């Protein structure tokens, strides 16, 4: 099963490697991992997408909690939540492809944020499925480069991950 684990961690040197080291040492999967400081600059928030049986996920959350610098851990996929990922995709845009890509971009409510004679950079935000669908909708031979941020997640409503 796929899970999105969110955690708050002290914003200190090496904190990220403690988390990634834990995953590699114990053989857990990381599908994506994102990290950035929160509104409180002394803390970072991390979103980890992982897969595993219930037992494994239980161990992952326990092991994460055990890391001294980890302040709080929540499996946000246990309840209603929102996931978003950002993708920047550079495509070859010449001739009739220019118009077609523009149309696809509009349909996906994406934005073209860089234009040259021969290329576009498209910015797209959504869940993983939407980003995958956009890539599927573009002729693969036109894709020059893609970069994805990995998943950020947040619980819906009253569910808050805060100190």
């Amino acid at each position, binding site marked *: 099963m796929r899970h999105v684990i969110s955690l708050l961690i002290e914003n200190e040197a090496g904190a990220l490697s403690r988390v990634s080291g834990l995953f590699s040492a114990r053989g857990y999967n990381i599908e994506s991992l994102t990290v950035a400081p929160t509104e409180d600059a002394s803390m970072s928030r991390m979103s980890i997408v992982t897969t595993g049986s219930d037992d494994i996920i239980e161990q992952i959350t326990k092991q994460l909690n*055990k890391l001294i610098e980890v302040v709080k851990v929540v499996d946000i996929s246990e309840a209603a939540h929102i996931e978003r990922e950002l993708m920047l995709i550079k495509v070859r845009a010449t001739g009739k492809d220019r118009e077609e890509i523009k149309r696809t971009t509009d349909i996906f409510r994406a934005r073209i944020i860089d234009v040259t004679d021969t290329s576009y950079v498209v910015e797209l935000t959504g869940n993983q499925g939407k980003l995958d669908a956009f890539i599927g909708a573009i002729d693969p031979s036109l894709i020059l480069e893609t970069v994805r941020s990995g998943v950020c997640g947040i619980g819906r409503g009253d569910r808050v991950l805060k100190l």
Partner: protein
Amino acid sequence: MVLSGAEIVIRCLQEEKVEYVFGYPGGAVLFLYDALFQQDQVRHVLVRHEQAAVHAADGFARSTEKVGVALVTSGPGATNAVTGIATAYCDSIPMVIISGQVPTAAIGQDAFQEVDTVGITRPCVKHNFLVKDVRDIAATMKKAFYLARTGRPGPVLVDIPKDVSMHKCEFEYPREISMRSYNPVVKGHSGQIKKAVQLLLEAKRPMIYTGGGVVLSNAAEQITRLTRLLGYPITNTLMGLGGYPASDRQYLGMPGMHGTFEANMAMHYSDVLLAVGARFDDRVIGNPAHFAEEPRKIIHVDIDPSSISKRVKVDVPIVGDVKEVLEEMIRQLEAGEARPNPDALAAWWKQVDEWRSRKCMVYKNSDEIIKPQFVIQKLWEVTGGEAIVTSDVGQHQMWAAQYYAFDKPRRWLNSGGLGTMGVGMPYAMGAKLANPDRQVACVTGEASIQMNIQELSTCKQFRLPIKICNLNNRYLGMVRQWQELFHGGRYSESYMDSLPDFAKLAESYGHVGIRVDRPADVEGALREAFTTHKDELVFLDFQVDQTENVYPMVQGGKGLTEMILSAEDL
């Protein structure tokens, strides 16, 4: 008061009431050694190899309830320390390791004696720090000691660059420390404890299984009271030996791969299993799938939530300090009217005693050749069962665990989790310094002892009269045993040629060496070591049976009940 970083480190050690630091100097820690030199409160034990420094600090911690402290230099000093750190980590031993680092400006430049110590040790420490500012030293040291000794204890490493140890700042040792990200649970959930007590009282085939957590939490008294109150059988793991008196009738011996028949059978066929400060290790329960075949309710008390339901699904998890939880269990039991069902318990004991009557620990003694088990039994007799016994890793370790009946905690020091050969002598050094009035014996083998044999020199310098009982069978015994049983008797690289004359070797370091060849001389030699040469290190080199195997045995991957009881079972 304005002090240098190095002086601050030493002041912090003084504030923490550290008596001994085990270490080895080098370029990156010169300022620290200079600061050590200029005071006499913290004493330094100069080892001959950094691995032994960490093991000795570890042995010091195991034999007391104090935090062990080691000090090493950067680069090779730190990498040599890693085995010791990992050993302590696997057995949750509270330690602080201070390592020197190249100056901050040189970090990342591939400087002389530079390694990423924090990176290398990260997976085998409870936590580690690189201190980049002299003003952070005091708080970091405070945190290091706090982390090492609280919650599930463990080693904490503090890496200090040379320039940081040289810089100066105002020193004040923080009185208290709080960390928003670290709040170990102490008290167990009272509702869960109530459930556990209820379950224990309803049990028809109860069993108590305790591990190193009971020793670490200083809860031997509590587990003994609870066990006697309930009248249930109990087993202590290799790490938990001495948690409950081995001489007591309710004690079934050690469980696991080389555990007793009765302990393993009772573990397996219990209907309620109370696990306390133990972690269902593969060497204890064998194959977890086989273990799960028999239905039983499991109550698991542990300070570390991640130890619970890791290898075995638990019915009543209780997170908390073992001592606190046991106190609460006893309180609830004593406050209530309910007592265990006497008929069910009598029937269970009848079964347990039947298993016990198999006498799985009997070995064939000999007048001709020294049996290793016999040496341990004599060691127990000669020391009145009161010595601190350290061991290395292998057959001799199992025989010591099986045949030296430990009645008290912190008397048995060995590397249970990591299984590190070479810990025996350094453990004995640490234990002897911590317990100068107690007899300390190191049970070892000719292979293990050579992994830190250089420490004979340290023992001379610091006058440590430990007694080394070398069960010399000229083989890597446990490897040979597995090769005999599972690899068609092909003894690949398990025979050691060109061994030194250990007695002479010990003498060359200025100690007493005694070689013992005949069973009739075993007791005399031991008595001589512990009485005539009471104040000297004695190296007893026992020439033991080369073919002796450790039984009972549960083969790796097999179930607990699938035991080989003796060579006749093969």
